[in-house]
């Protein structure tokens, strides 16, 4: 029983991380119908902005975090939107998906070549201590991650559905041509989506990196896990990230413990396929529209 | 003689909405049946249930006496039933000619013969005739997605005729088609009908329906509220109240 709880708690902690990163996918889909395959790298890079700020600018950690978030908003938000997203926005999902795959390689290799290939320790935002819940140990950092993921999702969900700006962003994603005709500032809406995404990714970076250690290759697995979490949770709704993330984390832990460690990477996926086949729109996703 | 198409107690429910409510009717071989009714009365849904795009909640559909409920649309189509959709449904990246060839190719030969046979499945001449009739010659090699609304509408109808169907269900064929062309379209329907094809037409253009059909069903809130000749229907108080107005 203690083991069971420990696995559950650890799975939720890991799942919280996936959820936090997965928001990037669901948010971008709901507000611009794009997929960013560099999302994992968007979480990997800001940590290096922060490390560089501490090393080069010699600012304290909090300052570095603020700097990192600001710089990410500019580079991974605005510049990314202007340079890569804009030219491809009207050409469907695939070209941008491929360009962001290249971007992921670019970011990874740049960090490796210009900062270093070795993992670096990263100072924790929350206290690096553990607490015991019903006999299961959990790091305070993990609690913060889960809390933030939930908070971000609730906030975004409210913003998108309850505010006019949020609905304008969704409208822009669903039918940009008509949104333009109605006078919705399409450019600004899309920019907003990418800026929110970058800021959130930077925040996630600050929270996740103490657990993952700062390394150029962090984004690979994280991005993939988050992509899967987003799909299982429901790609077209921000809220999908949370169930998808937590479910993936928990199943991963249980299957590694009770089924097979050697097939650990595949068992959760196989189980989640069943979910998808029964609910083709994901657990919390909105149904596809009427087709006939 | 049994009717060609028999619809019995067909219902379709979407959550709380009963879009089609125990509808029964027959379509006899060789007739042109009109279906009219207010917006949202379930006409398109009825078509979708008859042709397998949607699974009906209840009821059954028979073609030549044989139950076809649950049959896939492609199999039904190969039994000689074709249709158009209310919203434009062409293949935007294919050219007009390719759209037309595609519309009939699956009726020719087998999977294997289609793989190893001629690229156009021997349908070029038929496609050209269709293009000429619908006055699409100048856009025959344009991608369908670049056509104007009315041109796409015509292409859509042309595709339904390509395979020489026995029964055609048309969902608002007249919408967006210019009046001159519309006269041609009506004439074409009549001519093909004379050759033996049967039609069911949903339409809001009263002039068009009244001139084309000899029998009309009126649907409201998923139920048939009136049926009869154009004249009878036009005078029916319920129809005037719910649909025609004034």
């Amino acid at each position, binding site marked *: 029983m203690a083991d069971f709880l420990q696995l559950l708690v650890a799975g939720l902690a890991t799942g919280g991380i996936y959820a936090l990163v997965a928001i990037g996918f669901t948010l971008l889909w709901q507000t611009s119908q794009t997929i960013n395959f560099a999302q994992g790298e968007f979480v990997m890079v800001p940590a290096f902005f922060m490390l560089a700020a501490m090393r080069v600018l010699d600012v304290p950690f909090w300052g570095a975090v603020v700097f990192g978030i600001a710089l990410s908003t500019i580079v991974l938000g605005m510049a990314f939107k202007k340079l890569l997203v804009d030219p491809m926005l009207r050409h469907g999902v695939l070209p941008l998906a491929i360009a962001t795959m290249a971007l992921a390689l670019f970011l990874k290799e740049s960090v490796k070549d210009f900062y270093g290939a070795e993992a670096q320790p990263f100072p924790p935002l929350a206290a690096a201590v553990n607490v015991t819940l019903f006999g299961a140990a959990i790091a305070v950092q993990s609690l913060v991650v889960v809390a933030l993921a939930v908070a971000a999702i609730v906030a975004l969900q409210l913003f998108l559905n309850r505010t006019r700006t949020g*609905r*304008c962003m*969704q*409208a822009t994603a*669903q039918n940009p041509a*008509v*949104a*333009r*005709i*109605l*006078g*919705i*500032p399409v450019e600004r809406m899309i920019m907003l989506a990418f800026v929110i995404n970058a800021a959130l990714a930077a925040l996630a970076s600050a929270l996740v990196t103490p657990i993952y250690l700062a390394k150029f290759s962090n984004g690979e697995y994280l991005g993939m896990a988050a992509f899967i979490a987003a799909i299982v949770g429901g790609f077209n709704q921000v809220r999908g990230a949370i169930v998808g993330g937590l479910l993936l984390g928990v199943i991963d832990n249980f299957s590694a413990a009770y089924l097979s460690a050697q097939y650990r990477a595949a068992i959760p996926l196989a189980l989640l396929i069943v979910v998808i086949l029964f609910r083709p729109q994901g657990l919390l996703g909105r149904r596809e*529209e*009427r087709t006939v | 003689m049994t009717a060609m198409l028999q619809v019995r107690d067909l219902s379709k429910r979407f959550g709380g909405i009963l879009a089609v409510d125990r509808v029964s009717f027959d379509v006899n071989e060789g007739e042109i049946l009109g279906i009219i009714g207010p*917006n*949202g*009365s379930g006409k*398109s849904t009825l078509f979708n249930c008859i042709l397998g795009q949607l699974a009906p909640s209840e009821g059954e559909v028979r073609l*030549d006496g044989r139950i076809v409920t649950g049959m896939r649309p492609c199999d039904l189509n190969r*039994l*000689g039933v074709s249709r158009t959709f209310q919203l*434009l449904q062409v293949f935007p990246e294919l050219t007009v000619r390719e759209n037309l060839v595609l*519309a*009939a190719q699956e009726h*020719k030969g087998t999977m294997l013969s289609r793989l190893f046979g001629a690229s156009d499945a021997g349908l070029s001449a*038929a496609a050209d005739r269709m293009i*000429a009739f619908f006055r699409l010659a100048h*856009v025959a090699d344009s991608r369908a997605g*670049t*056509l*104007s*609304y*009315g*041109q796409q*509408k*015509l292409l859509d109808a*042309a595709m339904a*005729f*390509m*395979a*020489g*169907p*026995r029964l055609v269900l048309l969902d608002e064929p007249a919408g967006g*088609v*210019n*009046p*001159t062309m519309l*006269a*041609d379209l009506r*004439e*074409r329907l009549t001519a*093909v009908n004379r050759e*033996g094809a049967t039609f069911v037409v949903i339409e*809001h*253009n009263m002039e068009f329906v009244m*001139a084309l059909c000899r029998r009309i069903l009126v649907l409201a809130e998923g139920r048939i509220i009136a049926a009869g000749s154009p004249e009878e229907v036009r005078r029916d108080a319920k129809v005037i109240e719910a*649909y*025609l*107005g004034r």
Partner: protein
Amino acid sequence: MAADAILALEDVVAGYGKMTILHGTSFAVRRGTITTLIGPNGAGKSTIFKTVFGMLPARSGRVVFEGADITNLGPRDLIARGLSYVPQGRNIFPELSVRHNLELGAVMAPKGFDLASRMAAAFDRFPVLRRKADAQASTLSGGEQKMLEIARGLLVEPKLMLIDEPSIGLSPIMANELFAALTEMNGRGMTVLLIEQNAKRALELSHDGIVLELGRTRIADTAKNILADARIGQLFLGGGLAEESPSRPAGEVIGSGASSPARPQ
């Protein structure tokens, strides 16, 4: 006529890729009128609207609105000046609710705009929309979707409304409602530029008519004159459905496309 024109096109050339569709189109729309634009399928009617509304660049020529050159301005500028546009086809936001779709018609509404009462008015005009206000827009029937679009387009009363074949898919009763709404708002001073294939009907309630053919203005006259012109009646109004069409190629085999009807297998 040019003096009281609210909108004027002067030798506008526009097209797609290498193809030119508008070959120097010119016409004017008088302030306070309902003007109907008619022409065969593919004549370039919708292209004119797209060009006026800045969705398609004019390659040369000018578009003038209330005396100011608005050529190639974007939608936001145009809406601010008092234009609005309801395009042809299906133009809803499929995953938003009916209410939220409708409300987006007022994105650029001026300050002090009373959204709640305008929404209520729209719901009164199209009661179906009120009943389905919280349904996802894509679940509406074809005609209901069109109503939603029209209601959205009419939410804020612009100075000039461009409306492209709004009656497609509407039942006769709803089409009446639509035309009544246009006439009513026209009565309050809104100018309407309308594209309709149901040309007779539209011309009957219009002041002016414009006949477009192959991207050129063929005729611009009062609606009454156009309706009276027998030649136009035959070419563009279908010449009455009962008469024999004059333009169908003679000797055409009106058989089915391919071969014989398919037999059940």
